[in-house]
C-alpha cells in the first residue's frame, strides 16, 4: 500500500496548458467530416476514404481518387446517418473533388434541407499558412476503422515543411505540383485521403492527400494540400483551329467557391499523361532509402504482369535484358528509357542462393489511382 500512496502523491492535480488534451477539438472536427465509400474494394484498391463538409447543405470536399468512379457513393455522417452522394466537379490539378450529399426525395438542384456542421473553406483560406514546427491534428477514416457513428481517427503531428511535392503514385509522377504541407505524423494511410489537417484548435489547414512515395527515396510521404493552394498550369487550347499554349491559374478557394455553385470549369488535361513511364510490371520494392537501394521486391501486385511471370517477394533483381541492375532507381530508369506497355524484358533475379531467369511482358499502367501493393507474405 505504501507504493500505491507514493504513486498517487506523484499525480499532479492540474494539467497545465502545455499538455491540454484535444478531446473537445476532436469532437468538434469529427462532426464536420464524413466517412466516404465508393468504387474499389478489389486489387487492393480501397473502397473507403474521407471527406470534409464545406457547407451546411452537405457539400463534401475530398481527394480526386478512384473512389469517385461510381454512381454509388455513400457517406456516413458523424451521427451515424447513411446518405448518398454524387460528384459535382473534379479538378485534377488540385487533386480535389467536390461532392454533394443527396437526400431521398430531393432533386439535385433543390436544397437538401440539411443543416450540418461544416468548415468555412473561404475563411480557412484567408488565415495565414501554418509554419514548420506548428502542431497539427489529422482526422481521417484510415484503414476504414470507423463506420456510421464511430468517430474518425485523430493523430497529432508537426508541420515539417511547406514545399513542392516530389512524389509518385505507383510509378506515376504525381499530378499535383503545387505547395503541400509535409507532416511528421503518418497521416497518409489507406483511406485517409480527403481527411482534414487542422490546427491544434481545429481550424482547417488542408486536405490530407493520397498514399504516395517520394520519387527520390521511395519512402512514404505524408502530406496535405493547403486550403490556400494555388497552381499555374500550361494547357493546350484550340483557338481558331490552332493549338495555343495558355497559362491557367487555379486556386483552391476559387475551385471550392465556384465548384459548390456548380459553375467551375476544370482545366483541360493531357490524356496521355502516363506516356514515357515505360511498361508496367506490378512490382513493389522495398523503401528506397539509400540512393543505391538494391532492387529487392517487397511485394507483387496480384494479377499484375510480374505476378503472372512468377516474381516473388524477396527476389533481388540483378539483370534486365543482360544489363546489371544495381538499384531500384536503375530498374525504374531502364523501364522508362527502354520499354513501354507490350515490351517483354528478360529479368534475372536472385532468389535465395540461385539466379532465376523470368520473362516479363510489361503491361499497361492501371488507371491513375492509388495502387496499394499486397501485404508482406505470411511468415
Amino acid at each position, binding site marked *: 500500500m505504501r507504493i500505491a500512496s507514493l504513486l498517487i502523491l506523484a499525480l499532479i492535480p492540474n494539467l497545465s496548458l502545455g499538455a491540454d488534451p484535444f478531446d473537445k477539438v476532436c469532437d468538434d472536427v469529427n462532426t464536420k467530416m464524413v466517412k466516404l465509400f465508393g468504387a474499389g474494394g478489389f486489387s487492393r484498391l480501397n473502397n473507403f476514404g474521407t471527406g470534409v463538409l464545406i457547407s451546411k447543405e452537405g457539400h463534401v470536399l475530398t481527394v480526386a481518387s478512384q473512389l469517385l468512379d461510381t454512381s454509388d457513393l455513400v457517406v456516413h455522417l458523424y451521427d451515424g446517418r447513411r446518405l448518398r452522394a454524387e460528384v459535382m466537379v473534379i479538378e485534377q490539378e488540385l487533386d480535389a473533388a467536390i461532392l454533394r450529399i443527396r437526400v431521398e426525395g430531393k432533386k439535385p438542384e433543390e436544397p437538401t434541407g440539411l443543416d450540418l456542421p461544416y468548415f468555412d473553406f473561404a475563411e480557412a483560406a484567408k488565415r495565414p499558412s501554418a509554419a514548420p514546427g506548428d502542431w497539427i491534428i489529422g482526422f481521417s477514416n484510415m484503414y476504414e476503422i470507423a463506420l456510421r457513428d*464511430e468517430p474518425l481517427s485523430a493523430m497529432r503531428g508537426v508541420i515539417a515543411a511547406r514545399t513542392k511535392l516530389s512524389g509518385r503514385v505507383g510509378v506515376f509522377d504525381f499530378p499535383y505540383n503545387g505547395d503541400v504541407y509535409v507532416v511528421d505524423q*503518418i497521416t497518409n494511410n489507406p483511406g485517409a485521403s480527403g481527411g482534414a489537417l487542422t490546427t491544434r484548435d481545429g481550424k482547417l489547414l488542408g486536405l490530407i492527400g493520397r498514399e504516395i512515395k517520394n520519387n527520390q527515396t521511395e519512402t512514404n510521404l505524408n502530406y496535405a494540400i493547403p486550403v490556400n493552394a494555388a497552381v499555374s498550369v500550361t494547357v493546350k487550347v484550340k483557338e481558331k483551329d490552332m493549338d495555343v499554349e495558355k497559362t491557367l491559374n487555379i486556386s483552391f478557394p476559387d475551385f471550392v467557391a465556384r465548384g459548390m455553385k456548380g459553375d467551375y470549369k476544370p482545366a483541360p488535361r493531357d490524356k496521355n499523361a502516363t506516356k514515357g513511364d515505360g511498361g508496367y510490371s506490378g512490382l513493389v520494392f522495398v523503401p528506397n532509402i539509400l540512393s543505391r537501394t538494391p532492387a529487392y521486391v517487397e511485394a507483387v501486385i496480384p494479377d499484375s504482369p510480374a505476378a503472372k511471370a512468377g516474381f516473388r517477394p524477396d527476389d533481388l533483381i540483378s539483370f534486365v535484358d543482360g544489363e546489371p541492375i544495381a538499384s531500384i532507381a536503375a530498374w525504374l530508369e531502364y523501364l522508362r528509357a527502354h520499354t513501354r506497355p507490350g515490351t517483354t524484358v528478360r529479368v534475372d533475379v536472385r532468389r535465395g542462393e540461385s539466379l532465376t531467369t523470368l520473362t516479363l511482358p510489361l503491361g499497361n499502367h492501371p488507371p491513375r489511382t492509388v495502387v496499394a501493393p499486397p501485404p508482406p507474405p505470411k511468415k
Partner: protein
Amino acid sequence: MKHVLATASAIMLGAVTCLIPAAGAQPPAAIEKAVIDAEAERVAVVAKLSPAVVAVCIYGGQAIGSGVVIDPEGYALTNHHVTQPAGAIMQCGLADGNLYDAVIVGQDKIGDVALVKLIPKEPGKPFPFVKLGDSDTVKIGDWSLAMGNPFSIALDFTPTVTYGLVSGTNRYEPMGSRPGISEYTDCIQVDTSINPGNSGGPLFNMKGELIGINGRINFEKRVRINSGVGYAISINQIKNFLGHFYAGIDTDHASLGAVVGTADETSDLQKMVIKQLLDESDAARRGLAEGDQVMKFAGRKMTSANMYKNILGTLPKEWRVPMTVRVGAKSRELLVRVQNITPGEKPTREDPMAPMPTPRPGPMPVPKGPNTTASPAAKLLKVKPGYVNYHFNEVQRDKLLAAAKKLGDFTTVAGAWTAEGGYDLGERKGAIKLEVNEKTADPFVKLGMNIEFSLHPFESGLTPRAAAEPVGSGGLMMALYHWHRYLTVGAKGFEGDFSHGGTEPLYPFPADGSVPTSLASLRVDADVIRTKHGSVTCKWYHSKADAKLLGFETYLSKDTDPCEVYFHDYKDAGGGLLLPHRLEVRFGDKRYGYINIAKYNLK
C-alpha cells in the same frame, strides 16, 4: 546495432549544429512556462511508472514483449500472444535491471490478455506497481504514454516511452484481421508509437493510470512497424476478467445465444434488432424474440453492430448483464446470462476475399526449449484442464473461504438445522418451518408452508419435477440442502467441483421488496465459488468487501434457469454464527417469495 548507433550520432551532430545558433537567438527563458511545466509533469509521471514496467522474456532472458505490474505481490498484465510463445515459466525484467522468474496465472486467449506472477528475490518483498484507471473516461484527443520494450532494445530493461494522442475509443478490431484467434473489442486506438516488442506493455493516461494493454498495430502494406495506428485492450474490459485471471482460469468469451444485427443495412440510421435466437439460450428463456429492438446492452446504448460486438467482447462467459429491449412502443429491462460460445458461433475467417492477415507488433521470434525445472516459479504451476494454472485457483479459493469463515465456522454444527419463521409468496403468506438433515443415511429437506414439502436429494428415481419442488421456486429445497452442505461440509462435500469461479456481477433486489429504479443499478460484484455435488451445480456469491455470502444459484441441470437465493439481514443464529434472516428466492424473471427466519436451531 552498429547501423542504429551510427544514425544516432549523425542525428546528434545535426542537433548540435542547429542548436547553437538558435540558443543565441532565443534564450530558453522565452519558452512558455506552461510548456516547461507540462514537460516536468510528463517526466515525473514517467519516472514514477518506469519501475513497474516489465520486459517479458523467455526463460533464459531473451526479451519478447512487455508487461506491467499491477499489485505489490508482483502480478503483471501482458498479452496472451506474448506469454504463449514464452511458455508457462518465463522471466520478467524490471527497470531495476533484475530478471525475475515468473509463472503464468490466468489468460484470455480471445481478448489477448494474460496475467503472470513475478517471484520476488526475497520472500514477501513488495513490487512497484501501477494503479488501474477507468478506460471509459478516455476520450479521443487525450494524451497517452506507452511504455515497454520495443524491438527488445533495452538490455537493462529500462522501459522505452512513447507519447501520443488517443486516436479512437471503443474501436472494434475483429478476429481474422490478424492471425490467431484474438479479437480486440472496445479497444483504444492511439497514434503513440507501438512497435514489435511493445506487445503486452501498458498504455497510461497522463495521470499515470493504466488505461490499456498495447497489443496490435495496423500497417497493411507498410513494414511491420508503427504506422500511426496502435491498439490497446481497454483496462475496463480487463477488469471484467481480472477475477478469473487471479483464479488461474483459462477464461472464455460469451455469446448472447442470439444474433443481433442491423435491421436494415441501407437505412439512414441504424436500428439493432435480434435476428436469430437459440431456443436453449437464456435470452430465449427471458422472452426475447426475433425482431425485438435492442436499445441498451450491459449499460451501453446500442448504435451499431460494432458497438454490440464491442460490449459482448468485454464479457466473460456466464456473466449476467442488464439489457433493454423495445417491442413495439414498449421497452423493458431484463437480466440476461451470456453463455458459452458454441462451436458453430465461434467467429471464423468467413470471407475468403478478406485481406490476408498481417502480423501483430510482437512478440519477437524466439528459439525454443529452455529448461525451467529449477525455477522457483515451477513450484507455483499446477496444470488442470480448464485452467491456465490451477495452483492460483486453490490459492484464491482458500483465501476467500478463510475470509468467509471469519463470519462463522459452521463445521461445528454439521447436524440437523431447523428454522422457523414466516413465508411471503405475495398472494400467500404464513408460518414456515424448515429442516435440513444430512446426518442420516437418507439426507432430507423438509419445508412446511401450510403444505409439507420434502426432498430426499439422493432418492433413486427422483424426477426433475420433484427435484424442483416447490413448484415455481426452481428447486428451493435442493438449494437449501446444498447451502447447508456448503457451510457445514465444505470442500469434501463437493466431489464434482469445488473451485474459485472468478468474479461475477450479482443483482440482489432491495431487501424490503421495493422496486429498483433499474436492474442495472442493483449490480454488486462478487467472488464466486463453484460447486458440484451429484448432478447439481451451484455458484456461491461472496462479497468482495468482507467475503460474506450474498446469495447463490442452484442449477438442477444445464440449460434451465437456476433457483436464486439472496441473503439479507445477517444476525447471530446462535453461538456467534452469523446467518441471513431474510431470504429472497427468485426463479426465471420472477420472485418466488421471501422467507423470514425468526429462529434457527443449529445442531
